[in-house]
């Protein structure tokens, strides 16, 4: 059905073949680690020691997965990666809600209300998005210690809220700036105040950007290691910290199959978010990145 007005039929020219070759090789490079992790996690240790990392398991076994989830040792304790999983959930949910609430409110107030000092606030927030966290960490430890919450769940939750603020505020501010000012003025003329406009007009209108913010926060907080290791405390170590402890613990033989199963389990939540949200994920990283 190729009419003369249709797209030029694509022949398999050497250029096209080269193009596909490049794409396939690149895809193999990106898939290789995931493949290695998967096949290794289904092998037994003797098979890993003898065979090569690319080979398919001769005997499929899910033992490593069970071990990784429930009995793998992180130094002294041997409760598996599941402990870290639930810790990460306990950290993620309140951090996400709190940070999105504060930053959407801040973004809204910055875009529609004239407030003295708003520019200074915004400038510091922007700069804060770029400054390495190592600059804030030690004084924060001292502050938390003085208040008496260092190494607790609230401590890590507050920390994620604090450091989620710059990027999320930027995200919301850019989004609200793109909304028509007339809408806001109309609401004002109708007598609505700051909070009414926020909760009854802005929040319902910002569902798309709320989804983006949630995706950013789920992946960002779940993947965090630095804050977890410093602020959460041993009891509340998130999954990434536990994973690193399991894998890099020096005692005994390295159980590669268990380690790889634990790694896949740790990566699972962000991967599900990535595969589940598709274009939203891309929108999230690009919008949250710099400009909306």
């Amino acid at each position: 059905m190729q009419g003369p007005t249709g797209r030029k039929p694509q022949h398999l020219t050497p250029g096209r073949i080269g193009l596909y070759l490049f794409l396939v090789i690149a895809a193999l490079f990106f898939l290789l680690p995931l493949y290695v992790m998967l096949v290794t996690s289904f092998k037994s240790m003797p098979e890993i020691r003898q065979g090569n990392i690319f080979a398919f398991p001769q005997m499929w076994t899910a033992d490593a997965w069970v071990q990784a989830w429930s009995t793998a040792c992180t130094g002294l304790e041997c409760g598996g990666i599941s402990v870290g999983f639930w810790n990460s959930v306990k950290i993620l949910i309140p951090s996400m809600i709190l940070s999105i609430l504060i930053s959407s409110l801040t973004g809204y107030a910055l875009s529609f209300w004239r407030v003295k000092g708003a520019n200074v606030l915004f400038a510091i927030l922007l700069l804060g998005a770029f400054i390495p966290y190592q600059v804030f960490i030690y004084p924060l430890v001292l502050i938390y210690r003085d208040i008496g919450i260092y190494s607790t769940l609230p401590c890590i939750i507050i920390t994620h809220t604090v450091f989620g603020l710059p990027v999320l505020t930027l995200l919301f501010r850019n989004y609200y700036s793109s909304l028509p000012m007339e809408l806001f003025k109309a609401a004002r003329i109708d007598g609505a105040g700051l909070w009414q406009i926020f909760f009854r007009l802005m929040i319902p209108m910002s569902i798309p950007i709320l989804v983006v913010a949630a995706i950013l926060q789920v992946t960002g907080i779940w993947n965090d290691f630095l804050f977890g290791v410093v602020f959460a405390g041993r009891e509340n170590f998130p999954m990434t910290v536990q994973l690193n402890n399991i894998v890099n613990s020096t005692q005994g033989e390295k159980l590669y199959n268990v380690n790889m199963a634990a790694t896949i389990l740790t990566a699972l939540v962000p991967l599900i978010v990535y595969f589940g949200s598709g274009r939203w994920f891309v929108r999230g990283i690009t919008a949250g990145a710099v400009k909306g």
Partner: protein
Amino acid sequence: MNTPDTSAAAVSAAVAPASVSRRKMHFSPYVALFPAFAIVLLAYVVTVVWNIWISFTDSKVLPVNIFVGAKQYDRLFSTARWLLSLQNVVVFGVLFIAGCLILGFLLAVALDQKVRFENTFRTIFLYPFAMSFIVTGLVWQWIMNPTLGLQKVADSIGFTWFRFDWIVQSDLALYVIVLAGIWQSSGLVMAIMLAGLRGVDRELWKATRIDGVPSWRVYLHIVIPILRPTIITASVLLAIAVVRVYELVLATTGGGPGISTEVPGKFIMDYLFGRGNIGLATGASTVMFVTVVILVTPWLYYEYFREKPRGN
């Protein structure tokens, strides 16, 4: 407050208490911005100032308030490990950013050629970005493990001359981290660039095709200049990752062999929490802070604070 609004009553109600509501209006934005102001002041301003102050004191395991001038900085810049970490972060940064930009751009251009399975390819190139640097580092650590990974595979199929033990070679281990970083982040560049390429005017392609300009020249001389803002965005994002690099090194090599893959982020963490040398560590983080502020401020100003019309 859900009284039915007959229009006349509503109007008079809105007009009458104007002075009261105006005062309330002045006040409530500050209430709304209070959490942000408090966070910025306490967690960003106070901490940075405090951090800088500690770096001028004689603090070791515990912070003390004895001013010693630039002593910590003198020590810092005569510490071989710090100098090596600076050198490493520059090498890592240049190779990582260049690698991500080039690979990301090539992937984006390739995907922009109306290829089949475009969505599948895009998904494959971007998924590593969803995973943490800890996971990325651990994965590459295993693949590069000389007794288990690539080298062993090569051995077993007869290529015994093949040596791929970079991760245990102190002069090559950094390149493994670069490779792992590129694997994790080049998909991000691909996604950003692809969006940029899709925004290029299609008329432009038609015009150049009619003129018979080869496509590689169009990309090099026309498309790349058009994509300049996109490239800058991507570079800034990658640069933040470079300055913050810590987990990737920790999980891939742990800074080793020896101290050969040490980076500033890890240096600071080690001296803060492991080696108990707080003065030195805060000095190092102050150096990072100043560097970043000097580099980022002009760009931020250009991007956000020039007078611009409000977006539609």
